[in-house]
């Protein structure tokens, strides 16, 4: 039986339009914390089975073995006005997401890539995927309490970002800090889009 949804799960009847931003980053980097800080409702988890051909070949059947894993996406939502809501989808953004990854990025305004300054290496896969799919993004350093503070230029270089890629920082536990990071991201996206169209 389906449970009865609480009224807060529904968007207002006046809403005409939705926008989507992907919050990407490696495991444990604070994506769900970020989504929860902005969302009006506790993040909702969408889980999917992803089947992929494994590299191993099953000798008995002489067919490629398949692997099935479950991937989870936590998403949240915020009304920006009477007629507009913003959805934030947190995703590890790994190649194994396959078709779900396409569904996440199609129609997204862009992506906010959260990085942990203690583990920048972990971000390379997601940055590569976004570049491959032509998804515009900004990189946001999550200011963990116990993480060292590096000059932004050093992080920019360590992540091998293009000169024009925005790098900023936030505290994913603080709603105001997350909203500010989103504002910087969308300003950056709008500037790039203006440049493309002019």
């Amino acid at each position: 039986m389906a449970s009865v949804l609480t009224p807060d799960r529904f968007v207002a009847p006046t809403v005409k339009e939705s926008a989507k931003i992907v919050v990407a980053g490696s495991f444990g980097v604070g994506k769900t914390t970020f989504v929860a800080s902005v969302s009006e409702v506790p993040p909702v988890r969408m889980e999917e089975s992803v089947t992929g051909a494994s590299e191993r070949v099953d000798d008995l059947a002489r067919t490629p073995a398949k692997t099935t894993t479950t991937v989870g996406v936590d998403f949240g939502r915020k009304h920006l006005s009477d007629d507009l809501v913003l959805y934030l989808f947190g995703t590890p953004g790994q190649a194994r997401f396959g078709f779900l990854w396409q569904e996440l990025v199609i129609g997204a305004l862009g992506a906010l890539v959260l990085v942990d300054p203690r583990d920048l290496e972990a971000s390379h896969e997601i940055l590569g995927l976004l570049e491959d799919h032509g998804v515009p993004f900004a990189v946001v350093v999550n200011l963990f309490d116990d993480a060292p503070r590096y000059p932004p230029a050093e992080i920019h270089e360590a992540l091998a970002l293009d000169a024009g890629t925005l790098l900023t920082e936030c505290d994913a536990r603080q709603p105001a800090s997350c909203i500010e990071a989103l504002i910087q991201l969308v300003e950056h996206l709008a500037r790039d889009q203006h440049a493309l169209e002019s």
Partner: protein
Amino acid sequence: MSGPRPDPDQVRPYVRTGGRTRPSADVRLESLVFARQGDRLGLSADARRVLGLFDHSGGGGLSVADVAAELGLPSSITRILVADLAGRELVTVARGHDDRRPISLMERVLNGLRAHA
């Protein structure tokens, strides 16, 4: 022994969506679904479960992602179910945008974010 068995992950969505594998309309994870009144005769069990979520909606909407999460259905199947319900005018879908990223939407998002900063 005959050939390899069909992959159940491929078979099940096909059966569940009545042979359809692509949504007819542009339905996305963030598309908003609003229920409408109408003739529900002949709907599949899954389609009825989708509409059932709106029994206490008060006219409010759910994203396709909410529907998928709540019913435990793959998002691809949920998108097809919603597109079919829209085709039968049992739901309306506030569609997302095409692949161009419209500046007008970015500006409205910015205004909304600044109002909440």
